[in-house]
């Protein structure tokens, strides 16, 4: 499954899956985060892994990367 990851200079990280279902993507992201923790990279999630939505309802995901 393809994912796009953005790492800013101030240490913010954003992971967005690009295909598949939300459930599958959530599981893959959680697996990635768990493996990174084993490797010594600890990431504090600002929220639970969530389903992507557009900003029409005013909810913004900071650092989010659109591929379209």
């Amino acid at each position, binding site marked *: 499954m393809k994912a796009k990851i953005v790492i800013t200079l101030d*240490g913010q990280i954003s992971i967005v899956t690009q295909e598949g279902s939300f459930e599958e993507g959530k599981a893959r992201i959680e697996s990635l985060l768990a493996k990174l923790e084993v490797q010594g990279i600890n990431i*504090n999630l600002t929220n639970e892994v969530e389903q992507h939505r557009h900003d029409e309802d005013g909810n913004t995901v900071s650092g989010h990367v659109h591929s379209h």
Partner: protein
Amino acid sequence: MPCSGIAVANGVVKSDVKEYIEKFGEEALAQLLKTYLSGQFSDLGEVRDVDLIGRHRRFQIPGVGLEIGNILINVNTKGRVTVNTKGQASYGDRQKVREIQEKITDALNTWGAVARQQDIISQIKAAGFEVTTQQTAHNGAIVIDVEV
């Protein structure tokens, strides 16, 4: 237009950039600083290595010691930056000292931040994930495509 992002996670890496500055070691840090200062403050002359001796010549000050013009610079791998004149301040030196101190501090933070980005990517690869593309955005953010 449909969006291809399905699941989204946002977070902050816990590690501090100072941890990465410390990993540079004094020799690499000295080289980085010399290159940086030579480019930024070429008007002050050559950047030279110096042994910085503490008051009353009782001890050598740890960290990188550099001299440019009449300005002494001490930077340690904990990220502490000390800049001063050799007791012979001229008109404008105070401003120059402050400018050098601020620029070195900013540069250290940027170098540490870049090292942290590179470490995260290395650890993603080491964890067995394939990174297919890597780009750096205008704001310094790194964007990678990964098979997760």
